Structure formats: structure tokens, C-alpha cells
């Protein structure tokens, strides 16, 4: 069975696109071949900056012939039926057979599709692949209409078997397939012919091209670590950079240089970022001092002077870049020295955060207020948390972050230390952004935690206030990430707080911000009832801010609002805290206030929490059972309950108790519906007829006595094991006793007994919501 080799040779393919292009080439070609009836043993795709290559092993030489028989109309059928059959089969009348079909004679079509040669199929599939290749961005060149990522120069397409190799003929917009390729652009520019994959890979290597990107990456890493080691340094690992660099070279030549002493005082993150972003250099660290002292650059050329010229050039460019970085660093330090961190942050008043939510400085003010409120909950000093909030984003105004946005936070820590601020405040500059994703570290220092929570709660309540919630896959402000951040901060820190109160506070602040932003020139008219900002007139002075029906802000100017439209009603404001309805808005029906924004945001948190807990193996119905309980905005408590319940339901006792509860509940619910009364009180042991009934009374007494204090101390495990003790008495009771007996007194007593069971179980979690 032949092997197939395809190479698409072009001008330089962007490094970031190569990995996906390899996969796409492999998938499109192999899928196409299989669909056309060929099979193969294996396929491997490769890429270099100038080529995409696919090697398919043991392809079938031709597709199998297919014979298909179709029964047509009876010979006596009308002409139209026959014509239809001919059209659908593509045959003529003399090609049909007439056979006996039981009830008289009928036409039969025998369609034979002969097997097709692999070469024919490959040519079709490859052409379709090239013409429809899913490049993220593609282009035309010259006078042609073909699109590729950059100009495509040649197509190698070769079938090889024991008898030799054969070019698969195809011609796409003037590019004819062949059996030749080229080596390295500078080191081996000539073209050469190949006979199959092994020959191809071997000749490429001689022509200074390492075909596999993994091999190139390995080669780079090997040489880089060796060179660094020889100088007593270690290479800072960066997988993304390694992949990118491997996609920029066909013949990697690793060179190492030293960083000028002038620049060794720069923070390591600055050196690393500047070298990586501008020049795609690896950083080399001195393991003893942690300083970045050297760099690794990877050239695509082996030169007579062993890279001396290349290294010198790179070193020069690096020096220019690092001089810039040093200039920024020294400038920023001078600023901090002269005006402090808060002085550096001053300019944020002129930076818009969002046109409906005011400036960055406004936002920082809100974060400060929230951080103060949160501080006592997390064990931080309120003044310290407030100070951290004020300076945490100051570095956005630094020259360094202006140049390297990815250093936000990191620079803040350095500058805050330089300004002599407490370590806890400095650390919050970086940590308050965290966690940045589901796998990022969660800050633990109380001041950092307070600001991190405040930052995220402000973001969420802000975008909720202006109704910019995530929809479907669209989440431009990363609000899901922010909510998960809050959840992880609360859970990791074992924090006890009523999230709803914090959300309400954040909303107050943000609704005021929207009012003020509106005041500054943008007209707002949020239609949600009693939420948001309402006003009228072009002068925009008549604005008030409401949150959930409560007026929380009014302009303090002389002729400030005295009347405003709120939720379809004209409101006359008496004092900042009281108002009255005057009349309907243009006769529209006044709508009662809907659910609050904070309530909606809390359910968003609950949804994120479900996703988070599901990842940790807790079923959604278990979470629902706990969400239905009071205090569900205390996430720590909620999770504690859910974990206990999940563990409980995994035990035999738990599973059986659940069945017992459901049985009790069913009987009770049916009886209540039938009788139209609620059985909820007065079960008396004196009406017990059976021993199991009396035992159950005793068990319930014991369980209640144990569960109440356990719940009070939030020991859900203890509460549930007390509940578990009900299992055996319940089972025995149902075994021995019929609840719905003819004796009305006994029946009522038993139903009231079941009601006790229900009440006890529901005090732990809403077991009705558990499935199964």
C-alpha cells in the first residue's frame, strides 16, 4: 500500500497559526480521503515557517467498486413514473433491466460505481483542501484569485510504493504539483527532488531544515539550558515563547548574551517582559540572586562567525529597548518619590473607565468604600484596606505600564514599596487583580483579599447597574471570571459574609456613578422599575438615582430634582430619602417593582457557584437543595451544607433516609391535598398503636434534640448523622404500619408524625429537590 507525502511550500507562515494549520491539513485531507472510500494506517502533519507537510502511511491504492441495485416502477406504470426513475438514476431506458417482481414485471437499475485510483481522489481532495483552508486570515497575491496565508509557491504531492514514486498531478491556479522542494532560505536555497517521506525528511535535514516543530523546540531548549548552565544561569521557562520561536526558524541556532550591568537593577519582570515582547528572547536567571542576567536568542542562520555579528546586533537592539525601560523605571520612581502613589494615581480622574460608570478615579473611590466595609469581615484594618484600594491601580498611570500593560499590578508593588507604604498595601497592588482565572492563585493576605473582593464586586455591580450582563458566549467585561473570583476568595478564605448586603452597597455606589456620569453629559434612561437613573430634559439637571425603590442620590445643586419619572410614574421628591408618586407616565400602566438588581446578580453568583462545585463533583440537585435554604448569600455556609449533604447522600443511610423522606412526604402531601388541611402539629405518642411507632417518636425526639444545636453551630455533618439515625425507625415504621388506617384519630396522629419527619429533614436541606 502506498504512502502519500504532501508539502505546501509558501512564504513565511505566522508562527501563531502553524499548530492549528497542521491539524487542519491533517483533518481535511484524511477526512476527504476516507469519505471517498480510501483508508490509511496513520497520518502525521508538520510545519516550518515556510511549509505545511502531511505524511500519510499505508493508503489504499484505490477505492472499492460499489454496486447498487434499485427497483423502479412496474413496466405497466405510466410514462411519467419511468421518466422520473431514469432521471433519478441517471440511466437511459436501454440500460435498465426488466425482471419479474412478484406482481408482474418491473424495471431495475443496476448502478456500478467502479473503484477509483487513489491519485485521482487525492488530487480532488487536496485541491478542495487548499481552496477552502480555514486560515484565520488569508490573502491574494499577484494577479491570482487563490487565497493562502501568504503566497503559495509550490505543491509537492507524491505517492510512493515498493515500485517507486509517482507525482499526483494537480494544478491550482498555475501552481503544478511536483516532487521537489527547497531547503533553508539562506543556507541551502536550491530545490531538490524527493522520493518519499523518509528521503524528504533526511534531505531537508541536510538542507538545514528540521521538519518537526517539536524537534526544533527540543533542540532550542536543550542548547539554551546547556549554554545557560555553562554560565551559571538557568533559562526562565516559557512554553508559549518556545513554541512561537520554534515556528520562526527552520534551522535554530541558539545564541546567548549578557545583559549590560546598567540594566541589572531593573525588576526581573521588566527585563523578561521587554525581552520577550519586543525581541522574543528567553531570560536567563541567576539562581543565587534571582536576577535576570542573560538572554537567549534563537537565530535562523548558521554563520561563518558563529553568530558573532547576529549577537552583536541583537545586543544593540536590546540595549536600546532596555534604555527605554530604564528611563520609564527611573521616571516612575521619581514620580513616586515626589508625589507618592496617590499622586501618581491622580491622573486616573481623566481616564474613562466606562462612559456610563465614570472615570477610573470614580471607580477607585467605590472600591475604597467597599474595601472599608469588607475589611472587618476578612480581618483587615479598614484604613489599611482603604489605602490599598486608593493606590492599587496607581501604576496604570506609570510610564512602564503605559509601555507594557501586562506589567500592571507587578509595577505597583515595586512603586508602593519605593513609596514606603506598608508591605500589605504594596502586595495588594498586584494581588487585588487575582484570581485571574480558575487556576490562578487566590490571595490570602487580609488587605489583598478585601481589595480583591471590592474590585470584583464593584465591577459586577457596575455592569449590572447599566445592564451589561454576559449573554451566551459574550462576556466582554469578563464578569463570569469576576464572579468566580469572588466565590473562590470567599471559599478559600472561609469568609462569612452576607453577599447580598455587599452587592446592595456596590449597586448603590454604581447607580450613583451612572447618575453622575449622566449628569456629566450622557443621557441615561434605564427603564427597569425603581432601578437606575431617571431624569428628563436636555439640561440633564433633573436626575435622581434609585436602587430597588430607594432613592439613593440626588444632585445637591440649588434647583436640583424635585420631580422625576421613575418606573413610569412621576415622582415628587420631598427630601433625599422620601418621595411620592404623582401621576402615571403618559397614562402608561404603572408596573410594580420587579425583582431587584441585587437579587438578579445573586442568582448569577449561584449559577457560577453551581459550575464551580460541579467541577468539584457536587451534583447540581444537591446544590439546589441547599440554595433553597435561608441565608443562601453566605457562600461559605452554603458550600459547607452542600458538601455535608453530598457526603451524606453517598452513604447507605443517606440514600435510604432520602427514600424514607420521600415516602413520608408523598403520603403526607397526598393526604393534605385530599383532606384540604395541613398536618403539621400535635402528633402524640399516646395514640401510637405499634411498637415501631413509639420507637419512631423516641427517635424523632432524639434527632430533634441533636439536630437543633448542630444546626445552630452549623455542624451540618452532625445534623445529618443525627438525621441518619432516623433511618432504621422509619424503615421499621413503614414496614409495620399502615398510615392511612380507618381509625381517623390514629390516621391523623400518624400524618402529624410524618409531618415531624418532614420538618426535621427540611430543616437541614430541601430534600425535595434531590433527584432519584
Amino acid at each position, binding site marked *: 500500500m502506498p504512502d502519500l507525502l504532501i508539502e505546501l511550500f509558501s512564504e513565511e507562515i505566522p508562527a501563531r497559526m502553524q499548530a492549528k494549520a497542521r491539524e487542519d491539513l491533517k483533518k481535511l485531507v484524511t477526512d476527504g480521503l476516507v469519505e471517498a472510500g480510501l483508508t490509511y494506517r496513520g497520518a502525521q502533519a508538520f510545519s516550518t515557517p515556510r511549509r505545511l507537510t502531511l505524511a500519510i502511511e499505508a493508503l489504499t491504492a484505490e477505492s472499492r467498486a460499489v454496486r447498487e441495485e434499485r427497483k423502479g416502477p412496474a413496466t405497466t406504470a405510466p410514462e411519467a413514473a419511468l421518466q422520473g426513475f431514469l432521471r433519478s438514476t441517471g440511466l437511459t431506458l436501454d440500460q435498465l433491466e426488466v425482471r419479474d417482481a412478484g406482481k408482474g414485471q418491473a424495471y431495475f437499475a443496476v448502478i456500478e460505481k467502479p473503484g477509483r485510483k487513489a491519485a485521482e481522489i487525492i488530487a480532488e481532495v487536496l485541491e478542495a483542501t487548499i481552496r477552502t483552508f480555514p486560515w484565520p486570515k488569508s490573502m491574494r*497575491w499577484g*494577479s491570482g484569485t487563490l487565497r493562502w496565508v501568504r503566497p503559495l509557491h509550490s505543491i509537492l504531492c507524491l505517492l510512493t510504493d515498493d515500485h517507486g514514486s509517482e507525482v499526483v498531478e494537480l494544478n491550482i491556479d498555475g501552481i503544478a504539483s511536483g516532487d521537489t522542494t527547497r531547503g533553508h532560505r539562506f543556507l541551502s536555497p536550491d530545490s531538490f527532488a524527493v522520493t518519499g517521506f523518509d528521503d524528504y525528511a533526511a534531505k531537508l535535514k541536510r538542507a538545514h531544515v528540521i521538519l518537526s516543530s517539536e524537534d526544533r523546540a527540543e533542540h532550542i531548549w536543550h542548547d539554551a539550558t546547556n549554554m545557560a548552565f555553562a554560565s551559571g544561569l538557568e533559562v526562565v521557562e516559557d512554553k508559549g515563547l518556545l513554541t512561537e520561536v520554534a515556528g*520562526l526558524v527552520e534551522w535554530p541556532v541558539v545564541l546567548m548574551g549578557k545583559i549590560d550591568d546598567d540594566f541589572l537593577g531593573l525588576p526581573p519582570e521588566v527585563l523578561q517582559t521587554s525581552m520577550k515582547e519586543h525581541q522574543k528572547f528567553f531570560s536567563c536567571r541567576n539562581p543565587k540572586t534571582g536576577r535576570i542576567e542573560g538572554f537567549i536568542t534563537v*537565530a*535562523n542562520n548558521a*554563520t561563518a562567525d558563529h553568530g558573532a555579528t*547576529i549577537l*552583536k546586533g541583537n545586543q*544593540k537592539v536590546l540595549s536600546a529597548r532596555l534604555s527605554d525601560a530604564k528611563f520609564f523605571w527611573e521616571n516612575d520612581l521619581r514620580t513616586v518619590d515626589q508625589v507618592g502613589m496617590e499622586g501618581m494615581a491622580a491622573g486616573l480622574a481623566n481616564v*474613562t473607565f466606562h462612559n456610563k460608570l465614570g472615570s477610573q478615579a470614580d471607580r477607585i473611590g467605590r472600591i475604597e468604600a467597599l474595601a472599608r466595609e469588607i475589611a472587618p469581615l476578612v480581618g483587615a484594618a479598614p484604613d489599611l484596606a482603604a489605602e490599598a484600594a486608593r493606590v492599587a491601580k496607581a501604576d496604570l498611570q506609570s510610564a512602564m505600564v503605559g509601555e507594557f500593560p501586562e506589567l500592571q499590578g507587578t509595577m505597583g508593588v515595586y512603586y508602593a514599596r519605593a513609596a514606603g507604604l506598608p508591605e500589605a498595601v504594596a502586595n495588594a497592588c498586584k494581588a487585588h487583580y487575582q484570581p485571574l482565572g480558575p487556576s490562578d492563585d487566590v490571595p490570602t493576605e487580609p488587605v489583598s483579599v478585601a481589595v480583591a473582593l471590592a474590585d470584583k464586586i464593584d465591577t459586577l455591580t457596575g455592569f449590572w447597574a447599566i445592564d451589561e450582563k454576559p449573554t451566551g458566549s459574550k462576556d466582554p467585561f469578563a464578569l463570569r471570571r469576576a464572579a468566580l473570583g469572588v466565590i473562590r476568595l470567599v471559599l478559600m478564605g472561609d469568609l462569612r459574609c452576607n453577599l447580598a448586603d455587599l452587592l446592595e452597597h456596590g449597586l448603590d455606589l454604581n447607580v450613583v456613578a451612572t447618575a453622575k456620569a449622566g449628569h456629566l453629559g450622557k443621557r441615561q434612561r434605564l427603564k427597569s422599575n425603581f432601578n437606575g437613573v431617571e431624569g428628563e430634559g436636555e439640561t440633564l439637571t433633573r436626575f435622581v438615582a434609585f436602587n430597588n425603590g430607594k432613592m439613593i442620590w440626588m444632585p445637591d445643586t440649588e434647583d436640583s430634582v424635585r420631580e422625576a419619572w421613575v418606573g413610569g410614574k412621576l415622582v415628587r421628591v420631598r427630601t433625599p430619602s422620601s418621595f411620592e408618586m404623582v401621576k402615571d407616565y403618559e397614562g402608561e400602566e404603572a408596573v410594580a417593582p420587579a425583582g431587584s438588581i441585587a437579587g438578579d446578580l445573586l442568582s448569577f453568583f449561584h449559577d457560577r457557584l453551581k459550575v464551580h462545585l460541579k467541577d468539584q463533583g457536587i451534583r447540581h440537585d444537591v446544590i439546589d437543595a441547599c440554595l433553597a435554604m435561608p441565608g443562601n448569600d453566605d457562600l461559605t455556609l452554603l458550600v459547607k451544607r452542600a458538601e455535608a449533604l453530598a457526603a451524606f447522600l453517598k452513604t447507605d443511610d443517606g440514600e435510604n433516609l432520602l427514600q424514607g423522606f420521600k415516602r413520608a412526604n408523598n403520603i403526607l402531601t397526598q393526604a393534605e391535598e385530599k383532606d384540604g388541611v395541613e398536618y403539621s402539629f400535635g402528633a402524640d405518642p399516646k395514640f401510637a398503636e405499634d411498637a415501631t411507632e413509639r420507637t419512631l417518636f423516641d427517635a424523632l425526639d432524639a434527632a430533634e434534640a441533636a439536630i437543633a444545636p448542630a444546626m445552630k453551630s452549623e455542624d451540618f455533618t452532625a445534623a445529618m448523622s443525627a438525621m441518619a439515625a432516623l433511618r432504621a425507625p422509619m424503615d421499621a415504621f413503614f414496614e409495620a404500619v399502615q398510615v392511612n388506617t380507618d381509625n381517623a384519630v390514629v390516621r391523623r396522629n400518624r400524618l402529624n408524625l410524618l409531618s415531624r419527619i418532614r420538618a426535621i429533614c427540611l430543616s437541614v436541606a430541601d430534600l425535595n429537590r434531590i433527584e432519584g
Partner: protein
Amino acid sequence: MNTTAPRSFQEIILRLQSYWAAQGCAVLQPYDMEVGAGTFHPATTLRALGSRPWAAAYVQPSRRPTDGRYGENPNRLQHYYQYQVLIKPSPANLQDLYLGSLAAIGIDAGLHDIRFVEDDWESPTLGAWGLGWEVWCDGMEVSQFTYFQQVGGHDCKPVSGELTYGLERLAMYVLGIDHVMEMPFNDPDAPIALKYGDIFRQTEQEYSRWNFDQADTEMLLKHFEDAEAECERILAAQPEDKAGRRIVMAHPAYDQCIKASHLFNLLDARGVISVTERQAYIGRVRALAKKCADAFVTTEAGGGVAA
């Protein structure tokens, strides 16, 4: 080919001129208006449009008022030179031709590390974009290499290949100079040897002061509006002149578009354009560029009329 190393800024320019002349390009002179980059020259912007073949190379003095540093920064200038090559349709060996030009100015590909690193080009003011690379020599960007896909909102058919060399930076690298003002402009052994700074230090100071502090912003704003209005008026005129000849005035209109673009840059340098206004101004210039492109493609040079 001259294999000795060039010794001055002008020698590098002269070698590029003769190299591209030898490749068959028409060596044009700079456009006589203030532009931000060589791309604005009608020999690129307009000639990239339409079906007629084209090959031109030229030096273009370029002005970026916000980049002025009073002649003190080793690399930044408010007035500098670009070398621009535009060939339509882009030849299959354009990369090789380009590498040949580097060899012509003394960059030996055997000794250096020359790389084509992804960099897609877009000009929001011209409504133009293309795909290509920035070319690195030993880690330094020495040229921009672009296959034009669209200009003025029109698809480029055929596609032009555009090469842009930042001449000062490239020359400083080739000549081994650290501060642009120290670069020999003419032969360093000439009886009157002139350095870049001898010619441009004072002008950099003068223009930096004018650009940043003195330019009359009200006048500039008015000029901007005037240029915009004139551009639109020219294009709105009847295609037939008083003698009944069909003469679409695409180039005079485009001059006004270039003017508006430069005036916007000056206003930007004076810091009177807010972030939100910026986009609106860029959009206004783009609208002019698109109208000019629409007009040009109806002309003979634009392939809209048989020659």
C-alpha cells in the same frame, strides 16, 4: 554589485535607487506635500488601485509631529525619510528582490539573521490593509513588507507588493551609528563632510517647538475643514469640463485628503484632540480617501477607462 560597505546615509539611498532602477522600477521623486508615510504618495495609494501594472520606487520625506523630540532622542524624529517600493502585480520573487536590496546596501544574508515576522498592516485613515511581515535583521525591524489587499475600501486586483524601509534606522544599523544626529549624511571624507545633525538638528528643534507649542490650533482646525470641503467639492464636480472633455479630478481631490490627514496629525501633536474625537477625525479622513479612490478607479490610470 558593489560589495563594499556604504559609508554615508546618502550612499545607502543612492544604492537603493540604483538597485530598484535595475529591477525595472520607475524611480520617482518625493511627493511635494507633507505626508505621514511613503504610503500616502499617490504613486502608492492611488496606483495600488485598478488593473494597470505599476512599478515605482522613491524616497518620501515623512512627518510625524508627535514623534518630535527636539533632536535629542537618538532614534526619534518628527521629520524622517522612508524608502518606498510598489510593484503591481506583486512578482513571485518579491522576497528575493527585497533580499537583493539588503545585499546592495551591505547587509550580507550569510552573516546576519534575516527574518520575516508576521505583521499585518492597516491604515485606518486610508481605509487600507494588507498582510505581510516586518523584516528583522538581527532582531531589529528594518522594513515593512506588505501585500495590499484593500485601499480606500476597494479590493486590490491585482495585488500590489509594497516595501517600506525606515531609512534612518536602517542606515544607522548598516553604518554602526548610535545617535541619528551623528550619522554621516554625505561622504565622511568629503571636503565639507556633513552629518545628519548638521542638516536636521536645528529644524527638529524648530518644528518640535512649533508642533507642540505654537501651531495655531484654530487656524489648523479651519484648514482641516477647508481641505475636507474642497476635497468633496472637487469630487462632486461634473466629470466634463467646460470644453466637454471628461476629466475626473481624482489627484487634486486626493491632495486635499493628504492635507486633511497632516492637519489632523498637527492637531493631535498640539494635544487638542480628545480620545473620542480622534476616531471621528480619522473617520473623516478615511471618508475622503475612499471618495478619492472611488473617483480614481473611474479614470484611465485607475483602469476605469481603456487607455
